[in-house]
């Protein structure tokens, strides 16, 4: 049994982590959060230069687990840009044989994901293509020229969503609702959002632990006090075991196991709840400083709220998981 990461996978995560540390440092996050762009060129092209855009192309030799590991690090760094949409667009375009997968793989063409039935997509103003994944209607690729974008004030400042209108029937149909790939793309999207949530939840836990070791009260680091220690232990207890839920969902998708759709739904629902709980607990663990805009915890808190709302709420996915289990 081998249910852990390979050295290669750990190395990929390190590379992405390093690239984002350089191209997306905290001061850039602050500047971006206070501006009104919905896309950041520098960190996007730095990430794409790692050659990870094509991870979900059928011949890449990688799979959803690898893509999830990258999305986890993007979540950790609260990276801007439509990474999940881009990875899925490559998978969709490469599998359908329509469109230019190479331009997508390099990141020159930017694709964002819009979930069937939703009005919102991240980085919509920067996107060249809109990948619409709808379990009921199939998968379509629509050019930016054919969509109408309405700016909104977005809660998630690291990955702002815009309101997007796309007329029925525009663009190119890649897969019908009955094609297996439609469901697979929808499932993959759930796993990748779960991975983003995992990375973010781990990040705010790490921030809280680091703060508890360094901040002193009553002449001692506050992490020595059992009340806070137990709170941090609870955060870790919520986050760390849930990591395996993301791994399993990605593994099941890659191996095309029968329970892959259900595993994806469970991972999305569970991790998005974990993320919101973790960010709330992180603010509490930090006290006043955690509540200030400048400290930045709010970027992850807002992202947690956005991950939770994106592609369907936890309750929606649990209801689906219940049905898939035959309850």
């Amino acid at each position, binding site marked *: 049994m081998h249910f852990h990461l390979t050295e290669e996978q750990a190395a990929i995560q390190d590379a992405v982590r390093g690239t984002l540390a350089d191209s997306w440092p905290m001061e850039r996050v602050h500047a971006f959060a206070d501006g009104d762009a919905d896309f950041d060129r520098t960190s996007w092209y730095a990430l794409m230069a790692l050659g990870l855009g094509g991870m979900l192309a059928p011949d890449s030799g990688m799979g959803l687990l690898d893509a999830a590991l990258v999305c986890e690090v993007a979540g950790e760094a609260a990276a801007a840009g439509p990474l999940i949409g881009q990875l899925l667009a490559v998978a969709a375009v490469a599998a359908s044989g329509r469109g230019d997968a190479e331009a997508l793989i390099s990141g020159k063409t930017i694709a964002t994901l819009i979930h069937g039935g939703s009005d919102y997509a991240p980085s919509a103003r920067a996107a060249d293509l809109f990948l619409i994944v709808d379990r009921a209607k199939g998968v379509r690729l629509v050019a930016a020229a054919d969509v109408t974008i309405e700016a909104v004030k977005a809660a998630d400042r690291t990955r702002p969503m815009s309101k997007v209108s796309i007329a029925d029937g525009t663009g190119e149909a890649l897969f019908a609702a009955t094609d297996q790939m439609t469901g697979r793309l929808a499932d993959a999207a759930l796993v990748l959002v779960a991975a983003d949530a995992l990375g973010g939840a781990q990040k705010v836990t790490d921030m809280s632990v680091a703060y508890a070791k360094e901040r002193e009260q009553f002449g001692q680091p506050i992490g*020595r006090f*059992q009340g806070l220690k*137990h709170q941090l232990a609870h955060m870790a207890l919520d986050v760390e075991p849930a990591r*395996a839920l993301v791994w399993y969902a990605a593994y099941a998708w890659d191996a095309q196991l029968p329970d892959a759709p259900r595993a994806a739904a469970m991972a999305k629902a569970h991790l998005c709840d974990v993320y919101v709980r973790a960010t709330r607990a992180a603010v509490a663990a930090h006290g006043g400083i955690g509540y200030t805009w400048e400290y930045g915890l709010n970027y992850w808190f807002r992202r947690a709220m956005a991950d939770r709302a994106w592609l369907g709420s936890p309750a929606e996915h649990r209801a689906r998981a219940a049905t898939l289990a035959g309850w």
Partner: protein
Amino acid sequence: MDLSYGEAAETFRAEVRAFLSLHWPPPSDLRGGDLKQFVRNFRALATEQGYLHRAIPKRYGGSEQPVDVIRAQVIREEFQRARAPMEVGGNGMNMTVPTLLEKGTEEQKELFIRKTVEGDYIWGQGYSEPGSGSDLASVRTKGELSADGSKWIINGQKIWTSQGMQSTHMFMLVRTEPDAPKHDGITYLLIDLDQPGVTRRPIRQMTGEEGDHTFCEFFFDNAETPVSWQVGERGQGWYVSRTTLKHERASIGGADGLGKQFAKLVDLAKEVGRIDDPIVRDKLAQIEGSVLSHRYSSYRIFSCAAAGEDPGPVALMMKLLLTEIGHEMALLAQELIGEHGFLEPAGAGGRGNRGPRGPEKWLDQIMGSLGNSIAGGASNIQRNIIGERGLGLPRDLAMSGER
């Protein structure tokens, strides 16, 4: 990733299965004592085969196999599938044997290991005292050398001893150097419980349960044990007690149990006609998120053990996670059984085995999940362990033993 155990393991599985199909189950006409003897013989045979007592040398009744967590897991799975008995459980196997293997004298090993392995000696754990729970180093039960220096004379009280009524022996921590610093004045002793200086009394638990499987308290009034039954150096008992069984510990057994329990909870929701209730479905799926996290994390820990790697902090979390999930399941179960919640838990007062068990059996789960939060390291201690060893937070000054 790969969830299979590999080809070698599957060949081995076939061997184990063939062995079991030949030797288990017992013929249907065995009763009472005969059945006991059959089980004993079966265990001996399985040990000879290398399936049981793998970490114990042959000369003490083990099968002395190289550490192999995959094989150990295959054995567990196949024995469970066949419902065949594995090792005799309890403190003796988990604590006494590993401690003696690591710290015992040759005489102690010969005296105790085989008898424990074969189930003749049943060991009570003599750590906790009425005033000494999580702060184990504060034990006060006294040990004094007899005038001729051949025996330890023991006076004091031990409490919360599982299987206390059946225990034949006890391993215990006693204070032998009253003036030494807290951790350095304790000695680890083995003692025969069948002697005039020992009084045992069952403790009635909050479940109402009494009888053989409950806790006991023990009173020692000039009880004696030979000096040759002292394990490790005098005054070093605290460190002796830190010995644990390191071999083949990782298993995915706990996860299987939890999964089965969850499946029963789903069945309960169906039985009571609540499975279509969206709130019940949501709550079930919520709990299942944790159940699956636990299961897949056990795969993770198991994989690391098989590869000889450290699984990291997740391994410190499994007990507390299990406790918390048990509590969640109990709460939902109570909601589902409705007014049956007024009934006494089925296992209470030893009435559990009489007649069919109704919905109130779920109340056992409620109290059981509470017991879990204390036994084997209280939940607050687990949180300390996660915080300190897992997250690297500084130790509480009061607990660090720093002076």
